[in-house]
Protein backbone atom coordinates (compact mmCIF):
# COMPACT_ATOMS: atom_id res chain seq x y z
CA UNK A 1 0.00 0.00 0.00
CA UNK A 2 2.91 2.29 0.45
CA UNK A 3 4.21 2.41 -3.09
CA UNK A 4 3.98 5.65 -5.00
CA UNK A 5 2.17 3.86 -7.80
CA UNK A 6 -0.65 3.15 -5.37
CA UNK A 7 -0.94 6.77 -4.32
CA UNK A 8 -1.05 7.88 -7.91
CA UNK A 9 -3.90 5.50 -8.64
CA UNK A 10 -5.87 6.82 -5.72
CA UNK A 11 -5.35 10.36 -6.82
CA UNK A 12 -6.61 9.51 -10.28
CA UNK A 13 -9.65 7.83 -8.88
CA UNK A 14 -10.44 10.87 -6.82
CA UNK A 15 -10.29 12.98 -9.94
CA UNK A 16 -12.87 10.84 -11.65
CA UNK A 17 -15.28 10.16 -8.82
CA UNK A 18 -15.94 12.77 -6.23
CA UNK A 19 -18.06 10.84 -3.76
CA UNK A 20 -16.30 7.76 -2.38
CA UNK A 21 -19.42 6.43 -0.64
CA UNK A 22 -21.05 5.52 -3.94
CA UNK A 23 -18.45 2.82 -4.47
CA UNK A 24 -20.17 -0.46 -3.72
CA UNK A 25 -17.20 -2.64 -4.72
CA UNK A 26 -13.54 -1.77 -4.59
CA UNK A 27 -10.82 -4.08 -5.75
CA UNK A 28 -7.51 -3.32 -4.09
CA UNK A 29 -4.28 -4.90 -5.35
CA UNK A 30 -6.10 -7.85 -6.83
CA UNK A 31 -3.79 -10.67 -7.96
CA UNK A 32 -4.95 -14.01 -9.35
CA UNK A 33 -2.76 -17.05 -9.80
CA UNK A 34 -3.62 -20.28 -11.57
CA UNK A 35 -1.10 -22.64 -10.05
CA UNK A 36 2.23 -21.00 -10.87
CA UNK A 37 0.75 -18.82 -13.54
CA UNK A 38 0.23 -15.21 -12.49
CA UNK A 39 -2.90 -14.31 -14.45
CA UNK A 40 -3.91 -10.94 -13.02
CA UNK A 41 -1.39 -8.47 -11.69
CA UNK A 42 -2.31 -5.87 -9.12
CA UNK A 43 -5.63 -4.57 -10.37
CA UNK A 44 -7.36 -1.71 -8.59
CA UNK A 45 -10.91 -1.04 -9.67
CA UNK A 46 -14.17 0.37 -8.35
CA UNK A 47 -17.78 -0.35 -9.18
CA UNK A 48 -20.11 2.56 -8.58
CA UNK A 49 -23.62 1.95 -7.34
CA UNK A 50 -26.29 1.84 -10.06
CA UNK A 51 -23.76 2.33 -12.81
CA UNK A 52 -22.48 0.04 -15.51
CA UNK A 53 -18.75 -0.59 -15.48
CA UNK A 54 -17.30 -2.23 -18.57
CA UNK A 55 -14.11 -4.25 -18.63
CA UNK A 56 -12.56 -4.28 -22.08
CA UNK A 57 -9.35 -5.62 -23.53
CA UNK A 58 -8.06 -8.23 -25.94
CA UNK A 59 -8.81 -11.86 -25.22
CA UNK A 60 -6.68 -13.43 -22.53
CA UNK A 61 -6.07 -10.14 -20.74
CA UNK A 62 -7.70 -11.39 -17.56
CA UNK A 63 -10.86 -9.31 -17.66
CA UNK A 64 -13.09 -12.32 -17.07
CA UNK A 65 -10.81 -13.47 -14.28
CA UNK A 66 -11.13 -10.11 -12.57
CA UNK A 67 -14.89 -10.24 -12.93
CA UNK A 68 -15.11 -13.76 -11.56
CA UNK A 69 -13.01 -12.78 -8.55
CA UNK A 70 -15.69 -10.33 -7.47
CA UNK A 71 -18.15 -13.08 -6.49
CA UNK A 72 -15.42 -15.60 -5.75
CA UNK A 73 -16.15 -17.90 -8.67
CA UNK A 74 -12.45 -18.36 -9.29
CA UNK A 75 -11.94 -20.47 -6.21
CA UNK A 76 -14.08 -23.21 -7.78
CA UNK A 77 -11.22 -23.95 -10.14
CA UNK A 78 -8.53 -26.09 -8.57
CA UNK A 79 -5.22 -24.46 -7.60
CA UNK A 80 -6.51 -20.94 -8.01
CA UNK A 81 -5.36 -18.25 -5.60
CA UNK A 82 -6.76 -14.73 -5.31
CA UNK A 83 -4.92 -12.15 -3.19
CA UNK A 84 -5.73 -8.55 -2.42
CA UNK A 85 -8.86 -6.94 -1.07
CA UNK A 86 -12.32 -7.05 -2.52
CA UNK A 87 -14.34 -4.55 -0.52
CA UNK A 88 -18.07 -5.04 -0.83
CA UNK A 89 -20.03 -2.51 1.21
CA UNK A 90 -16.81 -1.89 3.06
CA UNK A 91 -16.23 -5.55 3.97
CA UNK A 92 -13.34 -7.46 2.50
CA UNK A 93 -15.06 -10.49 1.01
CA UNK A 94 -11.86 -12.06 -0.26
CA UNK A 95 -11.49 -13.76 3.06
CA UNK A 96 -11.94 -17.46 3.82
CA UNK A 97 -14.04 -16.47 6.82
CA UNK A 98 -16.58 -14.84 4.53
CA UNK A 99 -18.89 -17.39 3.02
CA UNK A 100 -18.65 -17.54 -0.75
CA UNK A 101 -22.14 -18.98 -1.09
CA UNK A 102 -23.64 -16.02 0.73
CA UNK A 103 -21.54 -13.62 -1.34
CA UNK A 104 -22.75 -15.10 -4.59
CA UNK A 105 -26.38 -14.54 -3.78
CA UNK A 106 -25.73 -10.83 -3.35
CA UNK A 107 -23.38 -10.63 -6.31
CA UNK A 108 -25.02 -12.53 -9.16
CA UNK A 109 -23.49 -13.59 -12.42
CA UNK A 110 -24.56 -13.99 -16.04
CA UNK A 111 -22.31 -16.10 -18.23
CA UNK A 112 -20.98 -15.90 -21.74
CA UNK A 113 -23.05 -18.75 -23.12
CA UNK A 114 -26.68 -18.90 -22.06
CA UNK A 115 -26.78 -21.74 -19.54
CA UNK A 116 -30.37 -22.32 -18.45
CA UNK A 117 -30.95 -25.40 -16.32
CA UNK A 118 -32.58 -28.27 -18.19
CA UNK A 119 -35.74 -27.58 -16.23
CA UNK A 120 -38.90 -25.60 -16.97
CA UNK A 121 -38.80 -21.84 -17.36
CA UNK A 122 -40.61 -21.46 -14.05
CA UNK A 123 -38.19 -23.74 -12.21
CA UNK A 124 -35.21 -21.93 -13.70
CA UNK A 125 -36.36 -18.75 -11.96
CA UNK A 126 -37.61 -20.33 -8.75
CA UNK A 127 -34.62 -22.63 -8.17
CA UNK A 128 -32.21 -19.97 -6.91
CA UNK A 129 -34.87 -18.36 -4.77
CA UNK A 130 -35.86 -21.69 -3.27
CA UNK A 131 -32.37 -22.74 -2.24
CA UNK A 132 -31.75 -19.30 -0.79
CA UNK A 133 -34.71 -19.60 1.54
CA UNK A 134 -37.22 -17.38 -0.25
CA UNK A 135 -40.41 -17.14 1.73
CA UNK A 136 -42.65 -14.93 -0.39
CA UNK A 137 -45.07 -15.75 -3.20
CA UNK A 138 -43.10 -17.71 -5.79
CA UNK A 139 -45.47 -17.04 -8.73
CA UNK A 140 -45.18 -13.35 -8.05
CA UNK A 141 -41.39 -13.52 -7.91
CA UNK A 142 -41.21 -15.45 -11.18
CA UNK A 143 -43.44 -12.94 -12.95
CA UNK A 144 -41.61 -9.96 -11.48
CA UNK A 145 -38.21 -11.34 -12.46
CA UNK A 146 -39.30 -12.24 -15.97
CA UNK A 147 -40.85 -8.80 -16.42
CA UNK A 148 -37.66 -7.12 -15.27
CA UNK A 149 -35.76 -9.22 -17.77
CA UNK A 150 -38.23 -8.21 -20.50
CA UNK A 151 -39.13 -11.83 -21.12
CA UNK A 152 -42.53 -12.11 -19.47
CA UNK A 153 -44.65 -11.32 -22.53
CA UNK A 154 -42.87 -13.97 -24.58
CA UNK A 155 -43.04 -16.83 -22.10
CA UNK A 156 -46.00 -16.15 -19.81
CA UNK A 157 -48.06 -18.87 -21.53
CA UNK A 158 -45.39 -21.54 -21.45
CA UNK A 159 -43.81 -21.35 -18.03
CA UNK A 160 -43.93 -25.13 -17.70
CA UNK A 161 -42.04 -25.61 -20.93
CA UNK A 162 -38.38 -26.59 -20.88
CA UNK A 163 -36.07 -23.62 -20.95
CA UNK A 164 -33.85 -25.49 -23.40
CA UNK A 165 -36.43 -24.84 -26.12
CA UNK A 166 -36.11 -21.04 -25.95
CA UNK A 167 -33.97 -19.18 -28.46
CA UNK A 168 -30.44 -18.17 -27.50
CA UNK A 169 -31.42 -14.58 -26.79
CA UNK A 170 -34.42 -15.64 -24.76
CA UNK A 171 -32.27 -18.09 -22.83
CA UNK A 172 -29.82 -15.37 -21.94
CA UNK A 173 -32.63 -13.08 -20.74
CA UNK A 174 -33.94 -16.02 -18.73
CA UNK A 175 -30.51 -16.34 -17.15
CA UNK A 176 -30.64 -12.65 -16.28
CA UNK A 177 -34.15 -13.09 -14.85
CA UNK A 178 -32.90 -16.06 -12.85
CA UNK A 179 -30.13 -13.92 -11.41
CA UNK A 180 -32.51 -11.06 -10.60
CA UNK A 181 -34.85 -13.45 -8.78
CA UNK A 182 -32.44 -13.92 -5.89
CA UNK A 183 -32.37 -10.12 -5.48
CA UNK A 184 -28.67 -9.47 -5.81
CA UNK A 185 -27.16 -6.02 -5.48
CA UNK A 186 -24.59 -6.48 -8.17
CA UNK A 187 -24.84 -8.35 -11.44
CA UNK A 188 -21.63 -9.47 -13.09
CA UNK A 189 -21.95 -10.17 -16.80
CA UNK A 190 -19.27 -12.11 -18.63
CA UNK A 191 -19.66 -11.23 -22.32
CA UNK A 192 -23.39 -11.89 -22.08
CA UNK A 193 -24.11 -11.11 -25.72
CA UNK A 194 -21.12 -12.67 -27.45
CA UNK A 195 -23.00 -15.82 -28.37
CA UNK A 196 -26.06 -13.97 -29.65
CA UNK A 197 -27.16 -12.47 -32.96
CA UNK A 198 -27.28 -8.66 -33.38
CA UNK A 199 -31.01 -8.33 -32.66
CA UNK A 200 -30.80 -10.40 -29.49
CA UNK A 201 -27.70 -8.41 -28.53
CA UNK A 202 -29.59 -5.16 -28.90
CA UNK A 203 -32.33 -6.44 -26.60
CA UNK A 204 -29.78 -7.44 -23.95
CA UNK A 205 -28.19 -4.00 -24.19
CA UNK A 206 -31.58 -2.32 -23.70
CA UNK A 207 -32.15 -4.58 -20.74
CA UNK A 208 -28.85 -3.65 -19.15
CA UNK A 209 -29.77 0.00 -19.50
CA UNK A 210 -33.04 -0.69 -17.67
CA UNK A 211 -31.42 -2.84 -15.00
CA UNK A 212 -28.94 -0.27 -13.83
CA UNK A 213 -31.74 1.69 -12.17
CA UNK A 214 -31.87 -1.06 -9.55
CA UNK A 215 -28.57 -2.87 -9.81
CA UNK A 216 -24.90 -2.24 -10.10
CA UNK A 217 -23.52 -3.92 -13.16
CA UNK A 218 -20.06 -4.97 -14.22
CA UNK A 219 -19.79 -6.27 -17.74
CA UNK A 220 -16.93 -7.88 -19.58
CA UNK A 221 -17.11 -7.29 -23.28
CA UNK A 222 -15.06 -7.95 -26.35
CA UNK A 223 -16.93 -5.35 -28.20
CA UNK A 224 -15.71 -1.78 -27.69
CA UNK A 225 -18.76 -0.31 -29.30
CA UNK A 226 -20.95 -2.18 -26.88
CA UNK A 227 -18.90 -0.83 -23.99
CA UNK A 228 -19.30 2.64 -25.44
CA UNK A 229 -23.05 2.28 -25.77
CA UNK A 230 -23.95 0.82 -22.41
CA UNK A 231 -21.33 1.62 -19.80
CA UNK A 232 -20.76 4.59 -17.55
CA UNK A 233 -17.23 3.61 -16.67
CA UNK A 234 -14.73 1.62 -18.63
CA UNK A 235 -11.57 -0.10 -17.59
CA UNK A 236 -9.05 -1.29 -20.11
CA UNK A 237 -6.94 -4.33 -19.34
CA UNK A 238 -3.97 -5.72 -21.20
CA UNK A 239 -1.39 -8.43 -20.82
CA UNK A 240 2.22 -7.41 -20.43
CA UNK A 241 5.31 -9.28 -21.62
CA UNK A 242 5.04 -11.80 -18.76
CA UNK A 243 1.50 -12.63 -19.88
CA UNK A 244 0.14 -11.08 -16.70
CA UNK A 245 -3.11 -9.19 -17.08
CA UNK A 246 -3.09 -5.70 -15.64
CA UNK A 247 -5.23 -2.58 -15.64
CA UNK A 248 -4.05 0.05 -18.11
CA UNK A 249 -6.65 2.70 -17.74
CA UNK A 250 -9.89 3.26 -15.89
CA UNK A 251 -12.29 6.15 -16.31
CA UNK A 252 -15.59 7.58 -17.35
CA UNK A 253 -16.46 5.81 -20.58
CA UNK A 254 -16.74 8.92 -22.73
CA UNK A 255 -13.44 10.28 -21.43
CA UNK A 256 -11.65 7.00 -22.00
CA UNK A 257 -12.90 6.63 -25.53
CA UNK A 258 -12.45 10.24 -26.58
CA UNK A 259 -9.29 11.16 -24.66
CA UNK A 260 -7.40 8.02 -23.74
CA UNK A 261 -4.53 8.89 -21.47
CA UNK A 262 -2.49 5.84 -22.33
CA UNK A 263 -1.09 5.29 -25.81
CA UNK A 264 -2.00 1.56 -25.58
CA UNK A 265 -5.63 2.41 -24.87
CA UNK A 266 -5.66 4.69 -27.85
CA UNK A 267 -4.19 2.03 -30.09
CA UNK A 268 -6.64 -0.55 -28.87
CA UNK A 269 -9.76 1.54 -29.30
CA UNK A 270 -8.63 2.71 -32.71
CA UNK A 271 -8.30 -0.94 -33.73
CA UNK A 272 -4.53 -1.18 -34.10
CA UNK A 273 -4.53 -4.48 -32.20
CA UNK A 274 -6.84 -6.77 -30.34
Amino acid at each position, binding site marked *: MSSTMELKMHKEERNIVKDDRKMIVSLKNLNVYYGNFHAVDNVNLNLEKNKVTALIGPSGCGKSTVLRSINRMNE*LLPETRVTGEILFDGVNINNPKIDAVAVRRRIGMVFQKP*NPFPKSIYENIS*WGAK*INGYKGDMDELVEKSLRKAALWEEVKDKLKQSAMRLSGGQQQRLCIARTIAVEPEIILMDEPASALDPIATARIEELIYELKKNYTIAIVTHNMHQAGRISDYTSFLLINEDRKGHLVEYGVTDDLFLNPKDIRTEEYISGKFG
Partner: protein
Amino acid sequence: MTEINIAWYKIRPKYHESIITWFLQFCAGVSILVTLGIVFILGKESLLFFREVSIVEFLTSTKWQPLIEEFGVLPLLNSTLTTSFIAMAIAAPLGLFVAIYLSEYASERVRNILKPILEILAGIPTVVYGYFALTFMTPLLRIIFGQNTVDIYNTASAGLVMGILILPLVTSITEDALKAVPYSLREASYGLGATKLEASWTVVVPAAFSGIAAAFILGLSRAIGETMIVALAAGAGPNFTFNPFEAAETLTGYIVRISGGDISYNTVDYNSIFALGLLLFFITLILNIISRKLVKRFQEVYD
Protein backbone atom coordinates in the same frame (compact mmCIF):
# COMPACT_ATOMS: atom_id res chain seq x y z
CA MET B 1 0.97 -55.11 -75.83
CA THR B 2 1.57 -52.09 -73.63
CA GLU B 3 -2.10 -51.30 -73.55
CA ILE B 4 -2.89 -54.72 -72.15
CA ASN B 5 -0.24 -54.27 -69.52
CA ILE B 6 -1.75 -51.00 -68.37
CA ALA B 7 -5.14 -52.59 -68.16
CA TRP B 8 -3.70 -55.46 -66.14
CA TYR B 9 -2.16 -53.09 -63.62
CA LYS B 10 -5.39 -51.20 -63.32
CA ILE B 11 -7.42 -54.23 -62.44
CA ARG B 12 -5.20 -56.06 -60.00
CA PRO B 13 -5.28 -53.71 -57.04
CA LYS B 14 -9.07 -53.48 -57.25
CA TYR B 15 -9.34 -57.24 -57.18
CA HIS B 16 -7.06 -57.41 -54.18
CA GLU B 17 -8.98 -54.70 -52.37
CA SER B 18 -12.35 -56.20 -53.04
CA ILE B 19 -11.36 -59.52 -51.49
CA ILE B 20 -10.30 -57.67 -48.37
CA THR B 21 -13.48 -55.64 -48.35
CA TRP B 22 -15.47 -58.81 -48.75
CA PHE B 23 -13.62 -60.43 -45.85
CA LEU B 24 -14.10 -57.41 -43.58
CA GLN B 25 -17.77 -57.31 -44.42
CA PHE B 26 -17.96 -60.98 -43.51
CA CYS B 27 -16.35 -60.19 -40.13
CA ALA B 28 -18.99 -57.57 -39.48
CA GLY B 29 -21.62 -60.04 -40.59
CA VAL B 30 -20.46 -62.62 -38.04
CA SER B 31 -22.04 -60.57 -35.29
CA ILE B 32 -25.36 -60.80 -37.11
CA LEU B 33 -24.87 -64.54 -37.49
CA VAL B 34 -24.33 -64.78 -33.75
CA THR B 35 -27.58 -62.96 -33.07
CA LEU B 36 -29.44 -65.05 -35.60
CA GLY B 37 -27.87 -68.14 -34.08
CA ILE B 38 -29.02 -67.20 -30.59
CA VAL B 39 -32.55 -66.38 -31.73
CA PHE B 40 -32.77 -69.49 -33.90
CA ILE B 41 -31.42 -71.92 -31.32
CA LEU B 42 -33.42 -70.52 -28.43
CA GLY B 43 -36.52 -70.27 -30.60
CA LYS B 44 -36.23 -73.77 -32.04
CA GLU B 45 -35.69 -75.57 -28.75
CA SER B 46 -38.35 -73.44 -27.06
CA LEU B 47 -40.83 -74.43 -29.75
CA LEU B 48 -40.12 -78.05 -28.94
CA PHE B 49 -40.58 -77.25 -25.28
CA PHE B 50 -43.86 -75.46 -25.81
CA ARG B 51 -45.16 -78.43 -27.76
CA GLU B 52 -45.04 -80.32 -24.47
CA VAL B 53 -45.89 -77.49 -22.10
CA SER B 54 -48.53 -74.83 -22.64
CA ILE B 55 -47.33 -71.23 -22.59
CA VAL B 56 -50.09 -70.35 -20.14
CA GLU B 57 -48.87 -72.95 -17.68
CA PHE B 58 -45.29 -71.84 -18.21
CA LEU B 59 -46.11 -68.25 -17.40
CA THR B 60 -48.66 -68.71 -14.63
CA SER B 61 -47.90 -71.86 -12.67
CA THR B 62 -46.02 -71.41 -9.43
CA LYS B 63 -44.45 -74.84 -9.54
CA TRP B 64 -41.33 -75.87 -11.43
CA GLN B 65 -40.90 -79.59 -10.93
CA PRO B 66 -39.75 -81.29 -14.11
CA LEU B 67 -40.00 -84.72 -12.48
CA ILE B 68 -43.77 -84.44 -12.20
CA GLU B 69 -43.97 -82.40 -15.40
CA GLU B 70 -44.77 -79.10 -13.72
CA PHE B 71 -43.19 -76.27 -15.68
CA GLY B 72 -44.25 -72.97 -14.15
CA VAL B 73 -41.54 -70.34 -14.54
CA LEU B 74 -42.78 -68.10 -11.72
CA PRO B 75 -40.65 -69.55 -8.89
CA LEU B 76 -37.48 -69.17 -10.97
CA LEU B 77 -38.45 -65.73 -12.24
CA ASN B 78 -39.45 -64.65 -8.76
CA SER B 79 -36.09 -65.48 -7.23
CA THR B 80 -34.28 -63.93 -10.20
CA LEU B 81 -36.17 -60.72 -9.52
CA THR B 82 -35.60 -61.00 -5.77
CA THR B 83 -31.83 -61.29 -6.12
CA SER B 84 -31.76 -58.58 -8.79
CA PHE B 85 -33.76 -56.10 -6.77
CA ILE B 86 -31.69 -56.74 -3.66
CA ALA B 87 -28.63 -56.14 -5.83
CA MET B 88 -30.08 -52.90 -7.16
CA ALA B 89 -31.04 -51.79 -3.67
CA ILE B 90 -27.31 -51.90 -2.92
CA ALA B 91 -25.84 -50.84 -6.23
CA ALA B 92 -28.20 -48.00 -7.17
CA PRO B 93 -27.78 -45.70 -4.14
CA LEU B 94 -24.19 -46.68 -3.53
CA GLY B 95 -23.32 -46.34 -7.21
CA LEU B 96 -25.01 -42.95 -7.45
CA PHE B 97 -23.28 -41.66 -4.33
CA VAL B 98 -19.87 -42.92 -5.38
CA ALA B 99 -20.39 -41.44 -8.84
CA ILE B 100 -21.37 -38.06 -7.35
CA TYR B 101 -18.34 -38.22 -5.10
CA LEU B 102 -16.02 -39.07 -7.99
CA SER B 103 -17.42 -36.56 -10.43
CA GLU B 104 -18.26 -33.61 -8.13
CA TYR B 105 -16.20 -33.88 -4.98
CA ALA B 106 -13.05 -35.92 -5.43
CA SER B 107 -9.81 -34.22 -6.35
CA GLU B 108 -7.94 -35.37 -9.41
CA ARG B 109 -5.53 -37.31 -7.22
CA VAL B 110 -8.19 -39.19 -5.26
CA ARG B 111 -10.02 -39.98 -8.48
CA ASN B 112 -6.86 -41.40 -10.02
CA ILE B 113 -6.62 -43.78 -7.08
CA LEU B 114 -10.30 -44.73 -6.88
CA LYS B 115 -11.02 -45.32 -10.55
CA PRO B 116 -8.52 -48.20 -10.92
CA ILE B 117 -9.85 -49.73 -7.70
CA LEU B 118 -13.35 -49.77 -9.19
CA GLU B 119 -11.94 -51.22 -12.40
CA ILE B 120 -10.28 -53.99 -10.42
CA LEU B 121 -13.59 -54.68 -8.70
CA ALA B 122 -15.23 -54.83 -12.13
CA GLY B 123 -12.59 -57.21 -13.46
CA ILE B 124 -12.99 -59.87 -10.77
CA PRO B 125 -14.69 -62.98 -12.19
CA THR B 126 -18.19 -63.59 -10.93
CA VAL B 127 -17.33 -67.03 -9.59
CA VAL B 128 -15.08 -65.28 -7.09
CA TYR B 129 -18.03 -63.20 -5.94
CA GLY B 130 -19.91 -66.47 -5.58
CA TYR B 131 -17.21 -67.74 -3.25
CA PHE B 132 -17.43 -64.47 -1.32
CA ALA B 133 -21.21 -64.80 -0.98
CA LEU B 134 -21.00 -68.34 0.31
CA THR B 135 -18.03 -67.99 2.63
CA PHE B 136 -18.50 -64.45 3.89
CA MET B 137 -21.93 -62.94 3.27
CA THR B 138 -24.00 -65.98 4.21
CA PRO B 139 -22.20 -66.60 7.53
CA LEU B 140 -22.46 -62.87 8.26
CA LEU B 141 -26.21 -62.86 7.62
CA ARG B 142 -26.60 -65.95 9.77
CA ILE B 143 -24.74 -64.26 12.60
CA ILE B 144 -26.86 -61.11 12.31
CA PHE B 145 -30.29 -62.65 11.80
CA GLY B 146 -29.82 -66.04 13.43
CA GLN B 147 -29.09 -69.52 12.14
CA ASN B 148 -32.75 -70.47 12.18
CA THR B 149 -33.92 -67.50 10.15
CA VAL B 150 -31.30 -67.64 7.44
CA ASP B 151 -30.80 -70.75 5.34
CA ILE B 152 -27.31 -71.85 4.31
CA TYR B 153 -28.32 -71.01 0.77
CA ASN B 154 -30.42 -67.87 0.41
CA THR B 155 -31.27 -65.18 -2.11
CA ALA B 156 -30.38 -62.31 0.23
CA SER B 157 -26.71 -63.23 0.35
CA ALA B 158 -26.56 -63.74 -3.42
CA GLY B 159 -28.38 -60.44 -4.02
CA LEU B 160 -26.17 -58.43 -1.69
CA VAL B 161 -22.97 -59.72 -3.26
CA MET B 162 -24.42 -59.20 -6.71
CA GLY B 163 -24.95 -55.59 -5.67
CA ILE B 164 -21.21 -55.31 -5.07
CA LEU B 165 -20.58 -56.96 -8.43
CA ILE B 166 -22.64 -54.45 -10.43
CA LEU B 167 -21.60 -51.47 -8.34
CA PRO B 168 -18.60 -50.57 -10.55
CA LEU B 169 -20.74 -50.80 -13.69
CA VAL B 170 -23.46 -48.54 -12.26
CA THR B 171 -20.84 -46.17 -10.88
CA SER B 172 -18.88 -45.76 -14.07
CA ILE B 173 -21.90 -45.17 -16.33
CA THR B 174 -23.46 -42.81 -13.79
CA GLU B 175 -20.20 -40.94 -13.49
CA ASP B 176 -19.98 -40.62 -17.27
CA ALA B 177 -23.49 -39.18 -17.26
CA LEU B 178 -22.66 -36.67 -14.52
CA LYS B 179 -19.43 -35.68 -16.26
CA ALA B 180 -21.35 -35.06 -19.48
CA VAL B 181 -23.41 -32.33 -17.80
CA PRO B 182 -21.77 -29.09 -18.94
CA TYR B 183 -19.69 -27.24 -16.38
CA SER B 184 -21.66 -24.09 -17.20
CA LEU B 185 -24.68 -25.48 -15.34
CA ARG B 186 -22.65 -25.91 -12.19
CA GLU B 187 -21.29 -22.38 -12.67
CA ALA B 188 -24.82 -21.06 -13.06
CA SER B 189 -25.84 -22.74 -9.80
CA TYR B 190 -22.86 -21.38 -7.90
CA GLY B 191 -23.51 -17.96 -9.40
CA LEU B 192 -26.95 -18.03 -7.79
CA GLY B 193 -25.44 -18.86 -4.42
CA ALA B 194 -25.76 -22.63 -4.38
CA THR B 195 -23.70 -24.90 -2.17
CA LYS B 196 -21.89 -27.81 -3.75
CA LEU B 197 -24.61 -30.20 -2.62
CA GLU B 198 -27.38 -28.03 -4.08
CA ALA B 199 -25.55 -27.74 -7.37
CA SER B 200 -24.85 -31.49 -7.52
CA TRP B 201 -28.11 -32.80 -6.19
CA THR B 202 -30.69 -30.45 -7.64
CA VAL B 203 -29.05 -29.38 -10.89
CA VAL B 204 -26.43 -31.87 -12.08
CA VAL B 205 -28.21 -35.08 -11.04
CA PRO B 206 -31.59 -34.10 -12.57
CA ALA B 207 -29.77 -32.91 -15.69
CA ALA B 208 -28.12 -36.32 -15.99
CA PHE B 209 -31.31 -38.15 -15.12
CA SER B 210 -31.73 -40.22 -18.27
CA GLY B 211 -28.07 -41.20 -18.22
CA ILE B 212 -28.38 -42.31 -14.60
CA ALA B 213 -31.57 -44.21 -15.36
CA ALA B 214 -29.73 -45.94 -18.20
CA ALA B 215 -26.99 -46.97 -15.76
CA PHE B 216 -29.53 -48.42 -13.32
CA ILE B 217 -31.38 -50.33 -16.03
CA LEU B 218 -28.15 -51.74 -17.42
CA GLY B 219 -27.17 -52.74 -13.89
CA LEU B 220 -30.52 -54.48 -13.45
CA SER B 221 -30.04 -56.29 -16.73
CA ARG B 222 -26.59 -57.47 -15.64
CA ALA B 223 -28.03 -58.67 -12.33
CA ILE B 224 -30.81 -60.63 -14.02
CA GLY B 225 -28.35 -62.39 -16.31
CA GLU B 226 -25.77 -62.99 -13.58
CA THR B 227 -25.20 -66.67 -12.98
CA MET B 228 -22.33 -67.83 -10.82
CA ILE B 229 -23.20 -65.96 -7.64
CA VAL B 230 -26.73 -67.33 -7.59
CA ALA B 231 -25.56 -70.77 -8.67
CA LEU B 232 -23.28 -70.93 -5.64
CA ALA B 233 -25.16 -68.98 -2.98
CA ALA B 234 -28.88 -68.86 -3.76
CA GLY B 235 -29.49 -72.59 -3.57
CA ALA B 236 -30.49 -75.42 -5.84
CA GLY B 237 -34.14 -76.26 -6.28
CA PRO B 238 -36.93 -73.91 -7.36
CA ASN B 239 -38.84 -72.40 -4.48
CA PHE B 240 -41.67 -69.93 -4.82
CA THR B 241 -41.00 -67.68 -1.88
CA PHE B 242 -40.77 -64.00 -1.10
CA ASN B 243 -38.54 -64.62 1.88
CA PRO B 244 -35.01 -63.57 0.91
CA PHE B 245 -33.53 -65.75 3.65
CA GLU B 246 -34.80 -68.94 2.04
CA ALA B 247 -33.05 -70.90 -0.66
CA ALA B 248 -34.57 -70.36 -4.10
CA GLU B 249 -33.13 -71.18 -7.48
CA THR B 250 -33.06 -68.49 -10.18
CA LEU B 251 -33.45 -68.79 -13.95
CA THR B 252 -29.72 -68.76 -14.51
CA GLY B 253 -29.00 -70.99 -11.53
CA TYR B 254 -31.37 -73.60 -12.89
CA ILE B 255 -29.86 -73.51 -16.39
CA VAL B 256 -26.36 -73.99 -15.00
CA ARG B 257 -27.33 -76.81 -12.65
CA ILE B 258 -29.26 -78.76 -15.29
CA SER B 259 -26.74 -78.33 -18.08
CA GLY B 260 -23.81 -78.97 -15.76
CA GLY B 261 -24.63 -82.65 -15.58
CA ASP B 262 -24.63 -84.94 -18.57
CA ILE B 263 -27.87 -83.78 -20.04
CA SER B 264 -29.33 -85.88 -22.81
CA TYR B 265 -30.58 -84.17 -25.91
CA ASN B 266 -34.20 -84.31 -27.09
CA THR B 267 -35.63 -84.35 -23.59
CA VAL B 268 -38.01 -81.86 -22.05
CA ASP B 269 -35.27 -81.01 -19.56
CA TYR B 270 -32.91 -80.08 -22.37
CA ASN B 271 -35.57 -78.04 -24.15
CA SER B 272 -36.64 -76.34 -20.94
CA ILE B 273 -33.29 -74.65 -20.36
CA PHE B 274 -33.58 -73.07 -23.81
CA ALA B 275 -37.08 -71.84 -23.07
CA LEU B 276 -35.74 -70.25 -19.89
CA GLY B 277 -32.83 -68.88 -21.90
CA LEU B 278 -35.24 -67.32 -24.36
CA LEU B 279 -37.12 -65.62 -21.54
CA LEU B 280 -33.84 -64.38 -20.09
CA PHE B 281 -32.71 -63.17 -23.50
CA PHE B 282 -35.88 -61.15 -24.04
CA ILE B 283 -35.87 -59.59 -20.58
CA THR B 284 -32.24 -58.47 -20.83
CA LEU B 285 -32.61 -57.39 -24.47
CA ILE B 286 -35.57 -55.14 -23.66
CA LEU B 287 -33.74 -53.63 -20.68
CA ASN B 288 -30.62 -53.04 -22.79
CA ILE B 289 -32.61 -51.39 -25.56
CA ILE B 290 -34.36 -49.08 -23.09
CA SER B 291 -30.99 -48.26 -21.55
CA ARG B 292 -29.46 -47.40 -24.92
CA LYS B 293 -32.44 -45.25 -25.87
CA LEU B 294 -32.04 -43.30 -22.64
CA VAL B 295 -28.32 -42.81 -23.20
CA LYS B 296 -28.97 -41.59 -26.72
CA ARG B 297 -31.60 -39.13 -25.56
CA PHE B 298 -29.22 -37.90 -22.92
CA GLN B 299 -26.40 -37.44 -25.44
CA GLU B 300 -28.66 -35.52 -27.81
CA VAL B 301 -29.54 -32.94 -25.14
CA TYR B 302 -25.93 -31.90 -24.62
CA ASP B 303 -24.41 -32.36 -28.06
